Every structure is written in C-alpha cells, then in structure tokens.
C-alpha cells in the first residue's frame, strides 16, 4: 500500500540550513547538501528546501545548491523561495528538483499555478500556504486566514477557499503550514489539516508543530494528511528518521522501511 511520507524540511539562509521558531530567531544548523545526504541515507522519503531569504533579497533560488543536491540524493525533492516566474520554475526543475513550491507568488498571481501545471505537469507544482487562526469569520469562514511572509502579513484570503482554488488551477499537492503551530513541537494543527484534506483530491502535506512520533500518528490518522514535514525534531538530533519510522510502524502507520 501507499506509505505515509516523512519529509525533512531544510530552511536555507546564506547557504546554510537554519531553524527558527514561528519564523523567527534563526540558528545555523549546517550545510544543506551534507544534511540532505544524511537524511537520505537515514531513509527519509522526500526532502524540501526553502531558500528563505531569496524573495526578500530579490534574487532567484540558489541553483548551484539545487544541482549539488540532485547529484547526491536519488529521491524526490522540492524547492521553494525565490520562484517568481515560469523561468525560475524551469531552472529549478532542470537542475534536478522534482517539484517547485509556490506560496507568495501564487497569492499575487494565481495564474502561475495553471501556467506551471500546464508547462511542467501538475505533479511538479506544490502550493505552500501559511494559514493562521482568525476570528474574522466574515472574511474567512473556515476560521483560517492565509498569511504571507510567515505570518507577518495578512491577506484576507480564506484558507479552505484558497486550497480549492489552487486545486482547480492545477496544483499537484498542497503543503499546509500552520503559522500557529510552526516551531512549537507541540503537535500539528489537526483541525486545519483535516479540513483541507477532506476537501481536496490532491495530496495534503501537514507542516508545523511536529515534535514526536505520536504527533505524526495524529495528523495521519485523524487529520488524513498524506505526508508530514519535520524539521526541529531531527535537526536537533533528538530523533533519527529510522527511529521515527520504527515508532510509526509499531503504532500501525504504513511507512517505507
């Protein structure tokens, strides 16, 4: 049967992997390629790289890094950050990335999803979204509002409506990154993930808040996530991928081992 995917996330700043809490207070963790190889060898199912300063610095994603990763790991990986046009998408894919993730770009220009999907295939186009809980139910009836820049800017867009719209435009997968849960290691935002997963046909990846294997069991079994993104719990060395998969397997989750 199809297994649940465990996807380490590497946030890149100044060519180094960093980790923050609620998108702030970043600390340097290491070299992206070395860390990618380590997680690949340890049995992760996929990887995702976010070039978190590319957009702010107005430059495209670090293509040399994408190439170096592609030359060293033979599983799928997605890249995001600094993707601002079809040309950027093409460059990242030709460098060996399996998928490109769009977030802010798609908010400003939703048509880019349809264009990318048509040009490269839906399976290449991932929508990243950063929803936050909101009281403004008039504007956002699902109770979650899409933010930009990791929760620093509000858009007034309803999270569920955005997910459905993106699916219609042709995304192949949706990454739901809860701003409220990000970096807390207190568990995923289950209701948010469940709501999105029940209302779209494409795979949904839960992101933000995973601190232990039980959190993953919850987001897979209760919230119907198809994959989960993890960062802090492995970057700190508290867990290895192998250990996570052993635990998940014992708890009845189908994982690749």
């Amino acid at each position, binding site marked *: *049967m*199809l*297994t*649940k*995917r465990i996807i380490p996330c590497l946030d890149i700043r100044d060519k180094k992997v960093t980790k923050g809490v609620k998108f702030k207070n970043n600390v340097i963790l290491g070299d992206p390629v070395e860390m990618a190889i380590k997680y*690949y060898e340890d049995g992760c*199912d*996929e990887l995702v790289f976010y070039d978190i300063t590319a957009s702010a610095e107005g430059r495209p994603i670090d293509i040399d890094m994408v190439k170096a990763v*592609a*030359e060293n790991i*033979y*599983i*799928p990986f997605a890249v995001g950050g600094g993707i601002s046009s079809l040309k950027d998408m093409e460059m990242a*894919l*030709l*460098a*060996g990335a*399996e998928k490109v993730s769009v977030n802010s770009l798609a908010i400003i220009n939703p048509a880019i999803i349809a264009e990318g999907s048509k040009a*490269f*295939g*839906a*399976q*290449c186009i991932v929508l990243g979204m950063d929803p936050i809980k909101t009281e403004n139910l008039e504007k956002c009836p699902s109770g979650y509002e899409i933010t930009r820049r990791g929760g620093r800017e509000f858009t007034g867009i309803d999270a569920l409506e955005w997910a459905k719209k993106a699916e219609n435009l042709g995304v*192949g*997968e949706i990454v739901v990154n809860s701003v409220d849960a990000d970096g807390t290691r207190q568990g995923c935002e289950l209701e948010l993930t*469940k709501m999105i*997963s*029940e*209302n*779209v*046909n*494409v*795979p*949904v990846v839960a992101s933000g808040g995973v601190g232990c294997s039980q959190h993953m069991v919850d987001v897979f079994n209760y919230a*119907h996530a*198809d*994959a989960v993104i993890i960062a802090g719990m492995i970057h700190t060395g508290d867990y290895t991928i192998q250990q996570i998969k052993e635990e998940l397997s014992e708890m009845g989750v189908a994982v*690749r081992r």
Partner: protein
Amino acid sequence: MIAIIDYKAGNLTSVKLAVQKVGGDAIITSDPDVIKAADRIIFPGVGAAGAAMNNLDDLNLDTLVKEQIASGKPFLGICVGLQVLFDMSEEDGGTDCLGIVPGQVKLFKAAPPETKVPQMGWNSVNFLDKHPLLEGIENNSYFYFVHSYYPSTSDRTYILGETSYAGVTFSSMIYKDNLVATQFHLEKSGKVGLKILENFCGWDGTC
C-alpha cells in the same frame, strides 16, 4: 552508450544523473541517428500522455521507438514512457498510443480524504517473476510513484510487477523479451531504483 530519448515530455536531468551514478554512460537526445547507434535505450517521460504522443509524432520518433524495441536492444520505459507503450490512454479525452503492450491506461478514482489523485509517494511492488533487472531486489520493495493514470493489461504474460492503489491492482512493471517498463520512477527510488538501473546498464536484453 545509453540514449535517453528526449521527446519534450518532462525533465530528464534526474534520469541522467541516476544512470551516471551507477556508472552508465548516457546522453539525452532526440536525434534518430544517435538513438539508433546507442546500445541501449531509456524512454522516460512525465506529464500527459496526449502531449507525449503528439511530441513523438512531431519528432518522427514513434516509428523509430517501435523499430528500436523490435531490434532486440535493451529498452527501458519509465512512467509516461511505460504508458505510451499501451494501446491507448484515457488521458486527454482518449489518446491512441504505440500499441506495443495490449491494454489501456485508466484514471484512478479519487476518494478523499483517504485516496488522493495523483498517487504520490512510495508504494510496494509485488514481483511475479524473476528477471535480470531484479537481481538483488527484494520482493515488495518500495518505489516512488507519481501518477493519476494507471496501466492495465489484459495479457498477464506482460506483467512483471503489480501494485495496489485506489482499489485497483495495476501492472506497475511490464516485460517482454528486451523490453522492460516501470510506472514508478527508478531515478527517484533511492537505492532500489539505482540497483535496477545498474542491472539495466549491464543487461544484454535476454531473460
């Protein structure tokens, strides 16, 4: 030399990198002379079957692909490179394909939240026979899949491996003489995918 056929059906970089990783000498090409001169062929592809068939037609590669398979040269199809070998695909309102493998390519039925389309991720393959390409591969190993349409052949003698998803068991690996094709992505399937590619690089095309 291995020719990786470029028919504008997706990104071939990772296929080339994976072949190089296992010591193969590969070139990405749509030049008929280079393809004819190669001693083995990889026929990859992502995206839609309709576009893939149109591109093969535009580049006059459809007949060449059939000839190359008939020549006995080791030939490996991957993903859409498997699907277009079938008689037809339901994709793009119904697409006539190359007709080398009897059967059709059909759309998975999504049933959220449990069953999403595309199938995206690692699924197991149950191998029905021994084959030189499966040397060193354990039965029910996991491979990386990403597809909305699945191959279904009526002639079970073509099925080398089967996989289950969305309530169907489909032909995830097919074989016939010098021809092998996988629905899963060998170039993205970690060590087991690389092992099959390595076996392909040393295969003489006989079973």
